[in-house]
């Protein structure tokens, strides 16, 4: 191999585009393109040259000089090795983060060459995210684009993309800009792009380290500043009795989508509970869904005008997800004792909040949960253990619920007589804790978006940094689990969100990562 070919080989291997450009100039000057062409013809694989050299050769060089230098031969040789490709989605998620999804007729490594508007070259490889489509994508007389690929492109300090080549094939693209979308929407879009690429959901864990976790981390940045949380509140309305000086508990309930019957149930339960009637509790509904805001407030205006207990409604500017909505509500709360409750949780009988309060008072550093039951009074939640599923190389955390399905009496008979039960993790469906401590550890991690696994993440951090996780045996509530998200058409999307959040929990916590090495 000639020295010029060796120099090209090194620059191509390193994807050193300034060197490649310089080598092209040198080759033109030395008119040695035919040497390179001859050496290339003898190589068993010219794939990296197709990906990394061809796009550069196709820049607006002087064609006569190229021909004179023999590089037109190199160009033609490499062009014949191009495997065509097409881009379905090119989405811009932030100023320098893009997600690409496309298709090709063959599997294998996908090398994406990007020329930015400011003339910078970069290469992005997608090694393990090229999937055979389940549907028949052959069209008569054409090659079938049966392999779908998806990946993340990070272009630091880039004003935008000028051109893209995929494995040497120049492709048309249209950038869809979703950088102004809400975090939750962005995650939905992101996962949707991966689903469109027919990515097997089981591959999600290994893709996290290929840009997914990094991108999610970047996108949730606006939530990190706790001082900014109040800016998400568009409006605040208060009803019922003015907050009394007896008040000692703030009950925070985020609302999303389904609200009417849940609020009816809450109102019925609170209206016969002495703790509420005596003014010990303020209720804070966080309307985390602008589409229901008008209806909720109209209803509240009439039904709560003479409420025996004080209520506050926080209308958020947009949907921020369970964790963030909870953070915002808790930050606004005026009591030191917080009880956080999902909207689809209903108290079984009065006294439940007093029991939680007493447990917190006896254990000021604890995170406390009641017993959650299904509507037939069987156990839904009395604490969780951590388990792992998926591949050993890429474990996915899962919550293992103790004693799920047992009757309440079976549980109470089988568990120890101590009024509090210490557990590994707690469901976020109902939690009681100190507001100060909660805010001290930063609340729920906003990265979890729509909800799921933020409770595991909180549990692990709480236990490590603050205190025990306890189940209060005296406090019982019904949890109508997943009822606020009722549309059947989003079941698949929901599955992806759950898995994604499970993977986020793993990525976000070194403790969980360590546990994966010891828990089978």
């Amino acid at each position, binding site marked *: 191999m000639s020295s010029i070919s060796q120099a090209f080989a090194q620059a191509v291997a390193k994807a050193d585009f300034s060197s490649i450009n310089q080598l092209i100039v040198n080759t033109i000057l030395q008119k040695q393109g035919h040497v390179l062409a001859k050496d290339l013809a003898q190589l068993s694989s010219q794939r990296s040259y197709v990906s990394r050299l061809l796009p550069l050769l196709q820049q607006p060089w002087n064609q006569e000089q190229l021909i004179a230098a023999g590089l037109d031969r190199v160009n033609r040789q490499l062009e014949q090795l191009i495997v065509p490709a097409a881009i379905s989605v090119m989405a811009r998620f932030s100023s320098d983060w893009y997600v690409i999804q496309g298709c090709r007729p063959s599997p294998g490594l996908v090398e994406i060459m990007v020329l930015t508007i400011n003339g910078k070259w970069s290469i992005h490889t997608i090694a393990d995210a090229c999937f055979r489509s389940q549907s028949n994508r052959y069209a008569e007389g054409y090659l079938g684009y049966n392999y779908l690929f998806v990946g993340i492109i990070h272009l630091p300090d880039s004003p935008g993309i000028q051109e893209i080549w995929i494995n040497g094939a120049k492709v048309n693209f249209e950038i869809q800009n979703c950088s102004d979308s809400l975090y939750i929407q962005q995650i939905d879009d992101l996962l949707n792009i991966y689903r469109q690429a027919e990515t097997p959901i089981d591959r999600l864990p290994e893709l996290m380290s290929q840009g997914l976790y990094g991108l999610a981390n970047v996108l949730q940045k606006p939530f990190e500043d706790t001082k900014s949380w109040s800016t998400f509140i568009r409006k605040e309305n208060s009803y019922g009795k003015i907050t009394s000086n007896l008040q000692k508990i703030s009950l925070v309930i985020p609302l999303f989508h389904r609200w009417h*019957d849940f609020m009816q149930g809450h109102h019925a339960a609170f209206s016969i509970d002495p703790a509420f009637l005596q003014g010990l509790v303020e209720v804070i509904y966080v309307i985390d869904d602008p589409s229901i805001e008008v209806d909720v407030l109209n209803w509240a205006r009439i039904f709560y005008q003479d409420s025996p207990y004080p209520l506050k409604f926080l209308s958020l500017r947009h949907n921020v997800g369970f964790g963030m909505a909870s953070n915002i509500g808790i930050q606004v709360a005026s009591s030191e004792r917080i009880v956080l409750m999902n909207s689809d949780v*209903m108290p079984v009988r009065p006294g439940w909040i007093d029991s939680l309060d007493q447990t917190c008072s006896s254990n000021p550093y604890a995170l406390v949960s009641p017993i959650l039951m299904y*509507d037939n009074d069987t156990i839904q939640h009395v604490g969780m253990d951590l388990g792992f599923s998926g591949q050993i190389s890429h474990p996915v955390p899962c919550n293992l619920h103790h004693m799920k399905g047992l009757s309440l009496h079976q549980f109470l008979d089988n568990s120890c007589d101590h009024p509090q039960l210490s557990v590994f993790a707690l469901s976020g469906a109902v939690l009681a804790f100190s507001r100060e401590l909660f805010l001290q550890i930063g609340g729920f991690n906003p990265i979890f978006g729509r909800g799921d696994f933020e409770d595991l993440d909180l549990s692990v951090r709480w236990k490590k940094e603050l205190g025990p996780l306890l189940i209060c045996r005296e406090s019982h509530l019904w949890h*109508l689990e997943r009822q606020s998200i009722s549309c059947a058409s989003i079941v698949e999307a929901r599955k992806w969100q759950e898995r994604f959040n499970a993977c986020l929990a793993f990525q976000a916590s070194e403790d969980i990562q360590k546990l994966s090495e010891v828990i089978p």
Partner: protein
Amino acid sequence: MSILFVAHGHPRYNKGGAEIAAYRLFKAFRDSADWQESAFLAACPDNSMLKPGCQVIGLGENQWLLKRSSDALLHDTDVNLSNGPHGFLYKSLSHLNPKIIHIHHYVHIGFDLVYALKRWFPAAKLIFTLHEYWGMCPYEGRLLTTRGHLCSGPQPDQCVTCLGEEHRAKLVVRRLRVQHYYSVFDQFISPSYFLKQRYVDWGLDPYKISVVENMLPPARKEIVALGEKKHNPSPLTFAYFGQVNPWKGLNLILKAFAIFVQICPDVRLEIHGCSIADLEEECSPHPEFVAELKSLVKSIKPNHVYFRGLYEPEDLDLRMAGVDVVVMASSWYENAPMVIQEAFLHHCPVIAPNIGGMAEKVRHKVSGLLFNPGDEHALVSQLIFLANEPKFLEELQTNILNIPLQGRGVFEQHQKIYRYQIASTIKTAIPADVNLSLVNPKLLQDLACNFEPLGANCELGFLMGRLGIQRSSLFRWLFTPLAGLELVLEDSLEGFFSDPVAVTDPLMASDMVVDRRTGIFFHASELRAKLEALNGSDFSRTDVFLDQKAKYLYLAEKFLASVVDPNTLHVFSDFHQELTEDAMQRIHSGLQKMGKPLGSTLLFVRAASDSKEDNVVQNLGNGIQLASIKQLAPGDHADRIDLLSWLAILNSSRSF
């Protein structure tokens, strides 16, 4: 004063028993001197009656229809309940100042209306009449499953089976809504003991439920007397009165009749409430059911079944006039079917299934016959029995004539409840020596209203004083041997207090007089002094006698009113140790003859012979209870009562 009555329908449009009962009550109170401002609010039969944007319709003075609520599961109210500018309902009602709000249903009305009424009229007491089993049964409120089986009560999984998995979450919310709804009432009224017991089992406080029958129509002269009922006693006429739906059991009656007419051809069945045209499938909300009825009618020989069509409540006299026996075959428990009251009013015995409110209201072989529910052959047996025993039928008719008609004191019983509620802010005074923590305030309220002594000595009078019950009562201070009490009750108080003489027995108190005819003693120092002064001559026209007689008549009238009130707790203490099972039954029969309703409590208290029996109360059936008290007060110190034992017994008695 005014009462706001709220019902799920107006009888002008809905002919259901509960709607009629509510409206009759409204009319009775509106027409009485003290309650003329009373008002009636009902759900609209069909929202198409409402003009666009309209939620309330006025129906004459102090009567309104409001937009019908559509959610039969969560019982929302579909009317704007604001007291702001768009709150038309509030504007319609705001001039009222009800002392009592009496709700008769929440179906079509919604729970939220009740909360709004409470908000708008905070001083008013809330009373709710339980007409069906909606509290515990979200599926149509009949405790009848979708498959038509009787349901033992609310179990979350059973309710989901009836209503569908998609309603699981709503059913939980409903449970809470129902729990809240029932918590806002000051008093409940149940037209039957059976219904009351079901609600007590379900969790309602027994002390808060009074049993009061539905109101009958005002007495009418034209009701035919027994013996004039029919010009021609043949053929024997059975009749069904009611709506045509799968749970009323008309199909069972027709099945039974198909067999019956083959054995006893000289009989006929009239069906009131439905015409033959109503059996067209397209006219009925139950097409399969009416198709079955049509086919059953065809299977019966001609000229045996007559469809008499719909009827108005005022048509009943005419309709019942030609009927010998009323038949019902409901597959659900019913509550207190008005058709039974109406039948008795017209001297018609009733054949009914031996379940629920029907079995409570119809006494087997006394006022009708009972058969195994759902069993057409059992019904056939009873039909044949009646057809073959005309004298027995006459006996039943005579019995009904002599049974005090339940429902006649309904106005007074309601008025008593209303007045009690209005006055209930005045607390019952309890003597300081009682450990108040052991006394259930609801029990005390209940006793204050419903405790009625029957003797045998003054212990019950002192007991009433210790319980803070200050009212006078016929037997409160009497010394009553059992035989005397039996005689008085047997005669329905006739002739009581007709032959008083001064007591000369040195063991008796010095102020006592004894009624010679009955042997009952009472404290009456003034009368006794006069009797002694008259020295045996005729005193029956003296001023003292007339004055005492007037007092007696006042007390007797109060006692008679207590007898017909189903909530009254009649108590007899066996101071004389004369009690036998036969004596208890005789006293019970005497009270029943005077109108004591079936199931209403009669408590006998005797001294326990063994400490294991201390303060144990046994339920002997038909409302008779026998208690063994740790100790009765000694004869010479009737005021030395064992108050805690009495409270324990009375609490057990009222908890049954």
